[in-house]
């Protein structure tokens, strides 16, 4: 765990869960797994506070526990999971694009609460949706639970490991902590529940009455109907699946930007660069963005069959792909074959041909795709930071692997002095490294080759570390800005509250205006500035997180290969 990761983890915990949880998480991250009493001693907090914090962390899957052979329970923080908190908005947005509002809210509720049983998740989401609908309409539970089932079928949510059944005769003392386990086949099976009901809307006027009614009813009913039918079955968001989806998205857009035409006016005839090499006697206008569509189809077919860390998808035959193309696509089988051949021949090697049965079997080479994406990210970073000539040298080194100083100048067609300067700058930033090749056993400097090279893995790790640092800096700056303007923010909140209450009780425009005047012009300006800055910082954090995702996926995929 690097310092940058530790700092970022503690900032994330502090922002989302408060100081106490941050202290506990910090202690666990810095000193490793430990039992409860050592933790209490380390953090200096009260034992009850530490217990509370641990409950919160375990609820959200940020800390796991293990029963040691001696009988004590050790807690361990999961740093990579804590860093995922940064990506929550992306998960929720993806769920929205795929499954609409119910999907979005389901994923949001599951992320906010860590894990939930299906019944309560569905109930919450239905209530929230009902509140946004017009008066008189309510959201039915069935629609929400349909979306839930669909999310489970496509593996976006999964069941949490369950506690073992308690034995009937408790002769032996129960273990200090349950060992949770789940079978692979059970992970996505939705329990058969008959959830009936409609979302409830909360009216502000009769809110209190409603609550009193509900509470009274509960007390009278007793415990008969309070254990919901899916007791003990909890669901959590399957982050790996979302990551797969992001990776597929990135792949498809890479193929699209490389092979498909960029923009097509609806009236113009699309001139595909691809069709120029194949003579097509019949005049037809193929649909746009076919190659990315083909790749998207292939990825969609392999969604559930490919393991998360696999380097290739399962081989798919051309016939299968043809059958699986979306309904609206009416390209001929021949055209599809041409596209597949082209994709397989492309130097980027996203798609590889693995055989000839079934009209040619193709598979998507996921590892290569991630390598290209990461390399493209590196190149783009060099370009933005150092300029396009530096980027040219960098790309040259990536292609040719090892080059001498003189060769760099020649191939890049850059004058010697400038080339030297750029190389040294990149060397000082550790993007480029020197490789010594001695000619003689005594490594004499005059008889040694010095070659420049780019070590992609090391450069990716270095940049990832920098990304973590950047996000941590951004968060600190944002918190600083909010702290500086705290007084002003509180004042504006109070004014808004007053305005709202006055509007509710029906005040005149003059009175409202008078209240609005309580915030002066310069203060308004300051608030505007603050809002703009905070928005910019937040958007930057989201942006850096996308880079983090690409680099992390690349590193993970490279480490997994045997």
């Amino acid at each position, binding site marked *: 765990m690097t310092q940058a990761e530790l700092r970022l983890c503690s900032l994330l915990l502090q*922002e*989302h*869960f*408060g*100081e*106490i949880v941050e202290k506990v998480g910090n202690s666990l991250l810095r000193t490793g797994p430990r039992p409860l009493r050592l933790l209490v001693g380390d953090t200096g907090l009260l034992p*009850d*506070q530490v*217990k*509370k914090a*641990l*409950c*919160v962390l*375990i609820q959200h899957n940020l800390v796991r*526990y293990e029963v040691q052979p001696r009988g004590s329970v050790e807690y361990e923080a999961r740093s990579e999971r804590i860093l995922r908190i940064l990506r*929550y*908005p*992306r998960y*929720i947005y993806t769920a*929205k694009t795929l499954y609409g509002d119910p999907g979005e809210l389901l994923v949001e509720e599951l992320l*906010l609460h*860590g894990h939930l*049983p299906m019944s309560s998740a569905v*109930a*919450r989401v239905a209530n929230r949706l009902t509140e946004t609908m017009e008066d008189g309409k309510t959201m039915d539970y069935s629609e929400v639970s349909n979306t839930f089932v669909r999310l489970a079928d496509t593996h976006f949510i999964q069941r949490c490991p369950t*506690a073992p059944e*308690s034995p009937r005769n408790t002769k032996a003392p129960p273990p200090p*902590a*349950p060992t949770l386990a789940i079978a692979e086949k059970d992970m996505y099976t939705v329990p058969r529940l008959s959830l009936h009901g409609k979302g409830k809307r909360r009216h502000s006027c009769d809110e209190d009455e409603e*609550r*009193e009614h509900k*509470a009274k009813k*509960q*007390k009278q009913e*007793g415990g008969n109907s*309070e254990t*919901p039918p899916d*007791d*003990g079955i*909890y669901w959590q968001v399957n982050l790996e699946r979302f990551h797969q989806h992001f990776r597929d998205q990135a792949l498809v857009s890479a193929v699209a930007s490389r092979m498909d035409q960029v923009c097509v006016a609806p009236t113009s005839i699309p001139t595909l660069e691809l069709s120029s090499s194949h003579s097509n006697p019949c005049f037809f206008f193929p649909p746009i963005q076919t190659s990315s569509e083909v790749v998207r189809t292939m990825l969609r077919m392999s969604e559930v069959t490919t393991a998360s860390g696999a380097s290739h998808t399962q081989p798919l035959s051309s016939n299968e792909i043809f059958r699986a193309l979306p309904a609206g696509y009416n390209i001929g089988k021949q055209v599809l074959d041409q596209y597949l051949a082209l994709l397989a021949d492309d130097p980027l090697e996203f798609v590889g041909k693995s055989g000839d049965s079934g009209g040619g079997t193709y598979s998507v080479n996921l590892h290569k795709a991630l390598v290209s994406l990461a390399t493209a990210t590196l190149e783009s970073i060099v370009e*933005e*930071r150092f300029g396009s000539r530096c980027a040219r040298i960098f790309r040259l080194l990536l292609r040719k692997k090892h080059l*001498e*100083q*003189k060769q760099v100048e020649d191939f890049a067609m850059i004058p010697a002095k400038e*080339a*030297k300067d750029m*190389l040294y700058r990149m060397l000082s930033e550790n993007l480029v490294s020197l490789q010594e090749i001695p000619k003689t056993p005594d490594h*004499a*400097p*005059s*008889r*040694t*080759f*010095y070659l420049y090279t780019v070590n992609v893995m090391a450069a990716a790790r270095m940049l990832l570390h920098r990304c973590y640092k950047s996000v941590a800096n951004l968060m600190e700056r944002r918190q600083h800005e909010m702290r500086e303007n705290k007084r002003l923010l509180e004042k504006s909140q109070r004014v808004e509250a007053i305005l709202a209450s006055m509007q509710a009780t029906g005040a005149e425009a003059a009175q409202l205006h008078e209240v609005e005047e309580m915030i002066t012009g310069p203060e308004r300006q300051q608030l505007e500035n603050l809002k703009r800055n905070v*928005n910019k910082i*937040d*958007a930057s954090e*989201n*942006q850096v997180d996308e880079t983090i995702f690409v680099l992390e996926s690349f590193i993970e995929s490279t480490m997994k290969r045997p």
Partner: protein
Amino acid sequence: MAGRGRGRGRGQMTFNVEAVGIGKGDALPPPTLQPSPLFPALERRAAPLPGGEEGEYMLALKQELRRAMRGLPYFVKPGAPRRDIERYSDKYQLSSPTDNAIDWSPDWRRLPRELKIRVRRLRKGRTAPLVPKQRLALDKEETIKKLESLEKKEEEVTSEEEEEKEEEEEGKEEEEEEEYDEEEHEEETDYVLSYFDNGESFGPDSDDNGDEAVY
């Protein structure tokens, strides 16, 4: 042999300088004598952030998420700090939840036993036996909490003494902890809490100052 050559000739290095590209007589940059500056000057401006609908939506989601997480019971707030002097109004203020309470009810079957917080109770016998509930939705808990507080106030008017009570089942814990909170601060008062006005509210004064003489 080791010290030979040191100091002779400017900038002698262990490797062949020409091979790396520094020719004879080329001006080398001056040596750095201090750590690099904390905020190095930006040579080129960063590219603008990608805007667009997706970016805006995710931005709004992020801020919304932050705000929502603060309001959830998972955001652990430290207990109210003890003031240096006990003030009279402390008795009448509804304090924040103490450190002993967990405001949400986790499934204790999935957690290690040592994490369960046991709170000592100071209460008299309850009128209606509470049924153990494993999971309560958050809003239901608030409802119950409010209802309990109202009930307690009614009970206290008649109660005079407090008793120690044994520890009870887990299911009753969260509700009793909340009552415990109310209890601790409402000891031995004959006054109904909601009628106390500590003068900070907005709006016109209430009408219950008929006792005082109006000057």
